[in-house]
């Protein structure tokens, strides 16, 4: 076996194996667990670095393993998968550090970190999936390994949230599976190929292909939290903060969005999908979700719930970008895949810091928190402003390209109002939080101060991750036009998709 065929496997294994080992560690072996986690994360980062370089220079990395006749498990690295793999890897590293701090002295750490690593392995596998079959496998695996994470706390609320989560995602997975099987029967193994492969099918298949598209999008839409399939997301926020962070930024929600991108671009082909008239429906679903999520976020007092609804809204930008025909809209959607991830993970880290340090769970308890925890609140502010689309934070770049793409595709008449409405609503639910944090006088005491202010405002492992990701979010916007930036990479993807 040559190196090129092994690299994708190694990328997946670099978190899978540590995860499996961690399951068998004793609760007390803190150092070893941390070492394993970090070693895995850093190794993965190195491997992904090689992958980026290779894919940029058009190397082919592909691993193939036959599960059943005609059904191959294929791991394949193309530009899109590399983008998602990189995002997952970087954010995994950060989240691991955060989780180490967050779960200090909490019970069941081995279980937690074991599943945590498996979760990332599933995400990376999903990113590297080379055909729809492989994608489905990792998609379902992701569902499975995140369930214990959501239920981790074991409170009735957590168990209930996890059950709702699983109900939704397994239902969605079933739809996806049926759609995939159907497509498989119709068109054989559906490898992800830039530009799609289904366009060559005879015209009498078209009605079936539309049905299949509907099934696939509904299946993926559950994870991507498209309205009305989003019901699980606000419940799943009972998970510990690092899990919510990863769930909302990379793993689950993003997996759904990534799947939509894959299906539209690399299975159907965006031009063919447009020809079938499928993009408009997707776009409308995304638009409704964007507005609905924002409105619901406005009504929440629980900080994490507010963030959860914000995710509902923000992730649909990706679907919206996908629904906009033309390379620029595509860039907007794909780059938001990264941007939303970085910003949302920052927000959840910060929310976790508030909860863990001061016992703050509600927006109404946040008065004056900016003075007590300036760095965390600064990170939160940067990310929140980015979500609104304020330059130069990353979110602005996404919105810019989405708007530009919509104008070029002649869809501005409804995309623009949606973008603006969403931005306004984002402002309406984020700015009051910032106002409270920075301008209100703090109350006499915090709800439950766990970590006293010492050298840092909270423990260092909790503090640095949000700061780093906030800086990443800022950098992603500020240096958007620099080489190897998310934007440049998204441009590369779009060019390859459209064969430019």
């Amino acid at each position, binding site marked *: 076996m040559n190196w090129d065929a092994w690299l994708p496997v190694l990328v997946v294994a670099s978190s899978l194996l540590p995860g499996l080992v961690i399951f068998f560690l004793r609760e007390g072996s803190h150092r070893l667990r941390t070492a394993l986690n970090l070693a895995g994360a850093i190794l993965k980062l190195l491997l992904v670095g090689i992958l980026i370089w290779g894919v940029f220079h058009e190397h082919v990395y592909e691993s193939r393993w036959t*599960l059943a*006749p005609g059904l191959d498990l294929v791991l394949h690295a193309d530009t899109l998968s590399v983008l998602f793999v990189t995002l997952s890897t970087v954010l995994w590293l950060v989240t691991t550090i955060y989780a180490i701090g967050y779960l200090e002295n909490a019970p069941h750490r081995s279980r937690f970190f074991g599943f945590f690593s498996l979760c990332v392995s599933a995400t990376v596998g999903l990113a590297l999936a080379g055909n729809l079959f492989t994608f489905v496998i990792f998609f*379902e*695996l992701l569902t499975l390994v995140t369930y214990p994470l959501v239920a981790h706390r*074991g409170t009735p609320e957590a*168990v209930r949230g996890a059950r709702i989560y699983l*109900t939704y995602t397994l239902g969605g997975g079933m739809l996806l*599976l049926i759609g995939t*099987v159907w497509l498989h029967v119709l068109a054989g193994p559906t490898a992800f190929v830039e530009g799609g492969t289904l366009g060559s099918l005879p015209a009498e298949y078209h009605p079936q292909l539309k049905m299949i598209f509907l099934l696939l999008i509904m299946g993926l839409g559950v994870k991507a939290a498209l309205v009305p399939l989003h019901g699980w997301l606000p419940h799943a926020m009972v998970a510990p903060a690092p899990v919510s962070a990863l769930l909302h930024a990379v793993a689950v929600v993003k997996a759904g969005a990534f799947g939509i991108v894959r299906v539209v671009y690399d299975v159907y082909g965006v031009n063919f999908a447009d020809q079938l008239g499928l993009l408009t429906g997707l776009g409308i679903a995304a638009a409704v979700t964007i507005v609905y999520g924002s409105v619901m976020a406005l009504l929440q007092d629980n900080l994490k719930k507010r963030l959860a609804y914000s995710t509902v809204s923000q992730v649909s930008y990706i679907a919206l970008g996908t629904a906009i025909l033309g390379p620029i809209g595509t860039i907007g959607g794909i780059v938001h895949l990264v941007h939303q991830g970085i910003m949302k993970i920052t927000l959840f880290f910060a929310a976790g810091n508030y909860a863990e340090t001061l016992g703050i769970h509600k927006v109404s308890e946040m008065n004056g928190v900016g003075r007590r925890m300036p760095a965390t609140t600064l990170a939160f502010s940067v990310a929140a402003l980015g979500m609104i689309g304020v330059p130069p934070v990353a979110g602005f770049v996404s919105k810019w390209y989405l708007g530009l793409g919509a104008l070029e595709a002649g869809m501005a008449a409804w995309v623009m109002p949606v973008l603006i409405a969403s931005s306004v609503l984002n402002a309406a639910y984020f700015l009051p939080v910032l106002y409270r944090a920075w301008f209100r006088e703090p109350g006499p005491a915090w709800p439950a101060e766990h970590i006293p202010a010492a050298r840092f405002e909270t423990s260092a492992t909790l503090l640095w991750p949000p700061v780093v990701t906030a800086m990443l979010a800022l950098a992603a916007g500020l240096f958007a036009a620099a080489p190897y930036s998310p934007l440049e990479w998204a441009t590369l993807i779009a060019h390859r998709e459209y064969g430019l």
Partner: protein
Amino acid sequence: MTDAMIGLVALPLAGALATLLLPRSATAVAIGTGLAITVAAGLLLFGVATQGALHYEIGGWSAGLGIALRADGLSALLLLMTALVMLAASVYASAYFSTVSERARFWPLWLLLWTSLNALLLSGDLFNLYVTLELLGLSAVALASLGGKRAAVAAALRYLLVGLLGSMMFLAGVGLIYAGYGTLDLAQLALAIGAGPVAWTALALMTAGLLLKTALFPLHFWLPPAHASASAPVSAVLSALVVKAAFYLVLRLWLDVFANVVTPAAADLLGVLGAGAVLWGSWRALQAERLKLLAAWSTVAQLGYLFLFFPLLLALPPGPARELAAGGLVMLALTHGFAKASLFLAIGIIQQRCGHDTIRELDGTAQRLPATTFAIALAGVALIGLPPSGAFLGKWQLLAGAVATGQWVWLVVTAIGSLLAAAYIVRVLGHAFGHRPYPNLPVSVAREEWPALLLAAMAALVLGLAGAPVWGLLEIGT
């Protein structure tokens, strides 16, 4: 390789006798025998894979009079599964039964059951099949009643009656066949048989008997109490293997022997019954209050999936598509065998540790028995049919068959059944993850937990990820 075939029958029989004679070291003997049988099963599979279908006539007497053993891909696979499940259950049972008297009663019957299972899978003619089926049923009943509790005995008696009824019907069918065609050898029959009243009647009788024994909806009424009241290792084997043996016969008859006789309408009937089993079994599993009942109802449902394949197999043209579907069927059966055995063993652990298996009071199990909970979760993955379990590949083929032949109704049934399965598994896991401040107990005895865990891993990981050879093996027919 024929030695392996003989060994598969002779070893457990000898072991049964040995345990009867040496009650004090019965456990050691039984485990040793189990290991030997597993090796033999492995060798047989290897032999079949390299040399093709095997055939052996004991004492050199040809078919008709003598006893012929035969093994093709399907039976070799099932034999290996039987061996692995039985071995794991044996290891578990060695810890489960604590007193000498219990062991002395258990092991001989256990090895006898193993013997009859192996013999059934290796038999090549209808009469031997009947004999082994009867033997299997009797030893199973005896094992089921071992617990000695009133409920267990009552259930076992019901089980016995059902088993006898089924066997009688099967025997009637066999008699008809012998009267009609003068041979009981499966290979010869397959060539000789043609559509006609005798064949139809015989097939109907035999199938009805087997359906009763395999507890297909609505003939499942006896299964849940019997499986739920037996001791854990016995339940595991009953659910995973014994019902599967009857199903194996249905499969043999319908696809090999009576291939020219069966009609799509009849297959549709089986499909409808299977659908009923899937829906009703899953629904009842969801309602179950005790873990063992849940597992037993789940068995009813899972057997239903297997029958859903029949209408598809008949509708698909012979060729690769059909081979794929058949492979999916076997994969599903294998996965279920491992998974269900694992589930019952795990439930046994919980029952012993917590003193009950009431689902509602399971809170905190994940903390107390992490490995066991993990085993249940893995088995659950296989039962739901999620990747990377073998059941996923099986269901994929089921769905693909349904789509390809346009029989959408099976697709819908499968989807609903899977979601219901997810629901009942999640219900258990939800309680298991529930938080309850238990003191941290010492890690459970590895001997108890490992078998369940390994079986579950087999179902949920190995079969799914390395199961591709199954399709190749199945092409090795008689």
